[in-house]
């Protein structure tokens, strides 16, 4: 054997080693599904700050047919620089893996500088309503149940407010059965007060938020008559130093009252503990989530909360700027959190990433929540100065169930890890095969729909909760599922990720098991239901009624 043939055979042998199999494949189904979306940031060279921040996306079942539809938020051209008309897009699920663009028909072909989306049935009529956050006036679209959305912004009392809004969240903070609304505002910005920033000292680049004043988040209480009351000041949420981008629901003190976690860019994150009297107190510093472990306020972008270690308590993931690493917080006693990102194997791989959307989801249905994050820098000149890419690969950290995470994005297939200027991220089971598919938006680029195909044979138990006494979407409800492998906990929540919303149906991976021994549901109303020997399938659970397969 010559040296050359030896080397060739060695290379062939190496190539023949099977690649790591994560137990699922993410197949790029965008084109096949008919999702032809192109984000318009309106960029024309002035490099206005909002251009690099959007936009978000959502999985929702707007027509109530049991199949998830897709909403993708869009920006628009700046006044005085009009070249095209762009709007958000609503794609209706055709039940066969394809979607139909129904934006016009649904009344959503509204031109606005959209940023994020929050979906919630605020009027409890059984059809999800939509809040679109924007640079300018946010818009509330009420679903009339017949396939159309009506702009009820002014009527609902949300009009007359101009801001640079980001993520938003529906939740029932006072547990009156009505969804209230929390909107994050980023900074006080307007084209007239745009600041010149430069990464390389020569060309204008997008600014980091230090250049602008902060802006308070808004909290609107649902009066139950289709209108909202601004309780920002009265609730203690008011804070003009905040530069908020992400928001997540969490029951930090496990008292059954929803608390709020807000991620701020270059400002301390806020953890608003619900004082059960309509007011909140910020306990972020005390809880250890305001700053990084070295005491620095990081550039908090996206956020998600979940019981990722199956301890029954909620942990937190926060995406940050490049060179700051993601934060992965595990609850520790005395109501505090410890950032275990480095120890868990999430910190180092995310050090060079500028993260936006993120979500805990059980990608391989093994019963352990994995962590997905999409990344992308804010300015293309960054690659010349900071030695990081403008387009960046996504992360898909697989949870080994022992406190460790391993990034398997490159092995997930179909270009999921190919560099993108990622922003929004949402998940949902659009093809109803029991696993979680992923929707990603990119800045000034297309959206991507990744269909999850489980290859390991793992199964899931899915629960769609419908409140009766509680808010109809059951936001804030907690479901716990036990198998001989242990327990899992999920909360129904909107918000999370970045500018985006995932489906409200809860997914529990049961690995190879065909049933759960016990399922317990704790409703926001305080009611608790328990079911035994629940087989793997998708169920609807109406508050106070037995499970029903759907």
């Amino acid at each position, binding site marked *: 054997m010559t040296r050359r043939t030896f080397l060739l055979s060695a290379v062939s042998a190496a190539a023949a080693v099977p690649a790591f199999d994560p137990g699922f494949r993410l197949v790029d189904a965008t084109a096949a599904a008919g999702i032809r979306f192109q984000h318009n940031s309106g960029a024309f060279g002035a490099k206005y700050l909002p251009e690099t921040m959007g936009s978000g996306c959502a999985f929702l079942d707007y027509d109530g047919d049991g199949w998830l539809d897709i909403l993708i938020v869009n920006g628009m051209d700046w006044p005085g620089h009009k070249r095209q008309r762009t709007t958000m897009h609503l794609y209706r699920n055709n039940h066969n893996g394809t979607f139909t663009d129904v934006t016009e028909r649904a009344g959503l072909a509204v031109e606005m500088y959209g940023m994020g989306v929050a979906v919630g049935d605020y009027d409890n009529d059984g059809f999800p309503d939509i809040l679109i956050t924007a640079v300018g006036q946010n818009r509330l679209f009420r679903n009339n149940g017949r396939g159309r959305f009506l702009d009820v912004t002014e009527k609902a009392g949300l009009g007359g407010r101009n801001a640079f809004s980001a993520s938003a969240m529906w939740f029932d903070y006072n547990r009156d059965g009505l969804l209230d609304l929390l909107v994050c505002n980023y900074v*006080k910005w307007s084209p007239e007060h745009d600041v010149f920033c430069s990464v390389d000292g020569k060309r204008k680049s997008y600014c980091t938020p230090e250049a602008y004043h902060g802006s*308070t988040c808004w909290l609107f209480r649902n009066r139950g008559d289709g209108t909202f009351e601004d309780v*920002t*000041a009265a609730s203690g949420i*008011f*804070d*003009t*130093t905040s530069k908020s981008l992400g928001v997540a629901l969490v029951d930090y003190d496990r008292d059954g009252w929803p608390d709020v976690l807000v991620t701020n860019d270059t400002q301390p994150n806020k953890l608003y503990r619900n004082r059960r009297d309509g007011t909140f107190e*910020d306990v972020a510093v005390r809880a250890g989530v305001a700053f990084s472990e070295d005491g620095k306020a990081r550039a908090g972008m996206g956020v998600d909360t979940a019981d990722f270690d199956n301890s029954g308590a909620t942990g937190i993931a926060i995406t940050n700027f490049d060179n700051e690493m993601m934060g992965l917080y595990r609850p520790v006693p005395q109501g505090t959190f410890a950032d275990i990102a480095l120890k868990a194997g999430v910190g180092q791989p995310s050090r060079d990433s500028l993260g936006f959307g993120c979500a805990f989801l059980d990608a391989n249905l093994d019963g352990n929540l994995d962590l997905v994050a999409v990344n992308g820098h804010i300015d293309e000149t960054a690659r010349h100065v900071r030695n990081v890419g403008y387009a960046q690969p996504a992360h898909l950290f697989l949870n080994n169930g022992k406190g460790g995470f391993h990034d398997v994005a490159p092995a997930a297939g179909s270009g999921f890890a190919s560099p993108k200027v990622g922003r929004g991220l949402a998940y949902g089971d659009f093809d109803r095969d029991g696993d979680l598919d992923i929707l990603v938006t990119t800045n000034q680029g297309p959206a991507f729909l990744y269909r999850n195909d489980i290859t390991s044979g793992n199964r899931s138990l899915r629960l769609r909760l419908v409140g009766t006494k509680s808010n109809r979407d059951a936001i804030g409800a907690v479901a716990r599922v036990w198998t001989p492998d242990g327990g899992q906990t999920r909360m129904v929540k909107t918000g999370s990720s970045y500018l985006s919303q995932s489906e409200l149906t809860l997914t529990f991976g049961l690995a190879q098991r065909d049933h759960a021994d016990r399922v317990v549901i704790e409703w926001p109303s305080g009611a608790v239901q328990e079911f035994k020997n629940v087989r793997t399938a998708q169920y609807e659970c109406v508050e106070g009624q037995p499970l029903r397969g759907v």
Partner: protein
Amino acid sequence: MLAGLAVILTAVGVYAIYTIVQLRALEDLQAKTIDRNRTDSHVLLRLQNNLNSIALTLRDMLDGSEPYPLTAWRGQFQRIHTDLSDALAQEEKYAPLERSADQRGYLTRSVAEFWDALDRLFGLAAAGQEQEARTLIRLSLQSRQEALSTLVARLLVQNNETEQVAAERTHGIYARAERNVYLLLAAMLVLIAATGVYLVQSNRRMFEQVAALSELRSELAQQLISVQESSFRSISRELHDDFGQILTAVGVMLQRAERHIAQRPEDLRADLREAEEIVQSTLEKVRSLSRALHPVILDEMGFEEALDQYLPGFQKQTGIEIHYEKDGPGRELDRGVSIHLYRVMQEALSNIARHSKSARAAVRVHFSPEKVVLEVEDEGVGFGGQEKQGLGLVSMRERAEMVKGRVEFLDGSSGGALVRLTVPLEPVSST
């Protein structure tokens, strides 16, 4: 070389002590001044950050861009208050030691006065007197905030100046340490070079001596072989020339005596007598040869007796008049010592006979409890500054070494040669 090593070790030791002293000084400076100062600066920066937040909040309250009443800002101020109070407690803990109690108290009092004014502000706002509250912000709170900010900035400047002084001191310590490192290195280099040169020279001398000794030993070996051959030749000649002829003559005499037994019995007696004389003479020769090869008397009677017997024979053979002296209490010498004393004496006298052209010689033996000294002196031409490397002299030197003694080749009092051999003796046991 040992001295060089000692100097190096001393230098290293002194430098180590000096370095430890410098490090302790640096450690002290670091702990008491630099670290404390830096921590305090961090706390002051935190205070400054809080004061900046207060300034921004006051500005937001005045600019009217928010649709909320002034009381909405209470929560924001409460957060700042909490952090600022904590920072103030830290500041009191880490304030530089040289800051006076008055200076420390002033900051705390000023902050307390600000919060009092803020409480009045929210009191007015809660009472619906927004306009008065805004006036209070402009006239009082903003001024107080600016004064506090200036105070903190001044403390930061003081800390910076202290830090600069400390940095200069640190720099001085480092500079001294660096200079001393160079000095130590230079001194070590010189010492190592000197030691190296010394070692090279020393080794060179040693190698030269080894080479000379090697050459001398080679020469001696050749001479020894030559002497051995000469001795064997001499013995062979003695045996052949003397004893061969004598024995032949004895044989002829015995044959003649045999013939006389029958024919002339009266001559038989004369023949036998003649043969007896020849045999007697031969016996003397054998004894003399035997004595020359090894003086048996030395073994039997001791060194002094051997001298007594040898010296008259030498005088008789060479015609050199020998004057023999002995002093000190004589004692029985070890056989190993006496043979070498005897041979040295023989060699010295032989040299006198061959080279000195002296008609007289003196042999002196001096006994003392701890040594025996043998001197052989002539009145001849002396060594005359000639190199004392002849085989005889070398053999005398070797023999002296074998008995741990010392041989000296000196000029005698009359200008002749003086050979002195000193051999240490074991103390005589009292038993």
